């Protein structure tokens, strides 16, 4: 059974979509930066984003010099018989000096565990492992050291889980939210033929169009579907179907979820008590200005909490999707 590492303060795991964002994250106080290669092996396969092999090597060197770590995401699901790209990503990440691999697919986990047994293996949120049996299976079978928990668990559920599993846990504290079972959502593929699970893109930009109305409104379209219309001045969100506004039962509204970002700064004390090892910030697709602001805010919040000072909870609202934030399932008020 794997021994858990206990930290006085949680590891701050921060996103980087580009080498510049990685440097900014490290300089702003990230303990770890996670990033991926420039292809469909990672769940943020967006145009102009991600790292070449050379950039990844330089990035890990930069991070290590500043006592930070780099976790490489290889967290999409290859199609059967087409695993070469994913295996190469695993090998190259290790060659580039990655401190851990974040994987989702069992076949890729098996390959990484067998080929690179000395490299730490983390289970991506895309694996959607949210109960003790599932997590124990990954730990026992692939020697997974840490699981990134789906954003559907309450804090009491996370606490109970931490008592039952042999590995560390990492939880999201800021950024985009998925209401679906992560790694299982196919909504995007119904409209575009592509999904985050298989292609690393939810609502691929090539299928997104925005149309500005003469009245100041803006239509958001995905494939052939209009999925939202924002009035003049109304804050917008990502063009994902789950955050679309639809006519349903005689009403027009958000039937899955509103455009909003997770912000768990206010829940930090409870999350620390729950036994999690790492706090994760979502947003490899965001600019480095976002990375810097969020990393600094959470570094300050951790410092303030350690000193017994009150936590500043509204510092990041300007960065939030739809101009609003939520504690999500951490503060579950529904059944």
């Amino acid at each position, binding site marked *: 059974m794997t021994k858990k590492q206990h930290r006085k303060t949680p590891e701050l795991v921060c996103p980087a979509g580009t080498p*510049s964002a990685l440097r900014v994250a490290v300089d702003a106080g990230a303990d770890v930066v996670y990033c991926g290669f420039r292809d469909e092996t990672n769940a943020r396969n*967006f145009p102009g984003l991600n790292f070449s092999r050379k950039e990844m090597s330089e990035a890990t060197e930069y991070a290590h010099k500043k006592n930070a770590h780099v976790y490489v995401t290889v967290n999409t699901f290859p199609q059967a018989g087409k695993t070469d790209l994913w295996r190469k990503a695993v090998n190259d990440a290790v060659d580039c000096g990655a401190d851990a691999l974040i994987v989702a697919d069992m076949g890729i986990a098996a390959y990484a565990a067998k080929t690179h047994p000395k490299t730490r293996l983390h289970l991506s949120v895309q694996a959607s492992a949210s109960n003790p049996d599932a997590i124990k299976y990954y730990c026992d079978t692939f020697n997974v050291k840490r699981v990134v928990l789906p954003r559907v668990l309450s804090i009491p559920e996370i606490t109970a889980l931490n008592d039952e599993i042999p590995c560390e846990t990492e939880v999201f504290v800021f950024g985009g939210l998925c209401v679906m079972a992560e790694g299982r959502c196919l909504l995007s593929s119904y409209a575009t033929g592509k999904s985050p699970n298989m292609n690393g893109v939810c609502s691929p930009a090539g299928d*997104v169009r925005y149309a500005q109305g003469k009245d100041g409104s803006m239509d958001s379209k995905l494939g052939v579907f209009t999925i939202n219309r924002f009035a003049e001045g*109304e804050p917008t969100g990502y063009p994902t179907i789950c955050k679309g506004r639809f006519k349903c039962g005689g009403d027009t509204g958000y039937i899955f979820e509103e455009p909003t970002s997770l912000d768990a700064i206010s829940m930090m004390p409870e999350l620390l008590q729950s036994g999690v090892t790492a706090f994760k910030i979502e947003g490899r697709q965001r600019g*480095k200005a976002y990375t810097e602001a969020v990393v600094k805010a959470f570094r300050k919040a951790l410092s303030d909490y350690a000193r017994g000072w009150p936590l500043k909870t509204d510092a990041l609202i*300007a960065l939030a999707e739809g101009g609003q934030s939520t504690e999500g399932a951490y503060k579950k008020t529904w059944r």
Partner: protein
Amino acid sequence: MAMKKDQQRLTFFEPVVRRVFRTILDAHPEITDRLGDYAASRIRIDVRDAPFCMVLQVAKREIGVYRRGAKVKSDAQISGSFMTLLKLAEGGDDGDSLFFNRDIEISGDTEAVVALRNALDDSDIDIIRESLAAFGVLALPLRIGYRVFQDMQPIVAGMFAP
């Protein structure tokens, strides 16, 4: 009466803008590399508080300057205030946040816009400093001129507001 296309073009400014554009591309080859196939896209930049717009094409190292509202062929369009677009290009603001808050608008080929945003965000450009450096001995007076422009910017924005 509609203007002819060549009347919409601000040819007086184009050599200056083109020189700056090419200087930046030369100093940051990673922009072209990161753009990949999207370097061929023609992207229109609409500066809301200025009397002009630009259409750039990285692969051809070309940039055109046109009167505001000119009908020019482009694959994708971004609009915002001068300072917003400048900060976005320099990575000083997060593009998604600007989009959520309606500070910028995009239309056309979203993929090309996202690629350009990501390429610029990675490039650590200082547009003003690098632009001024492109003019050698004129850099200092131009820098002073820019500072005056910054001070006057709210007034200028008001003059050209829709």
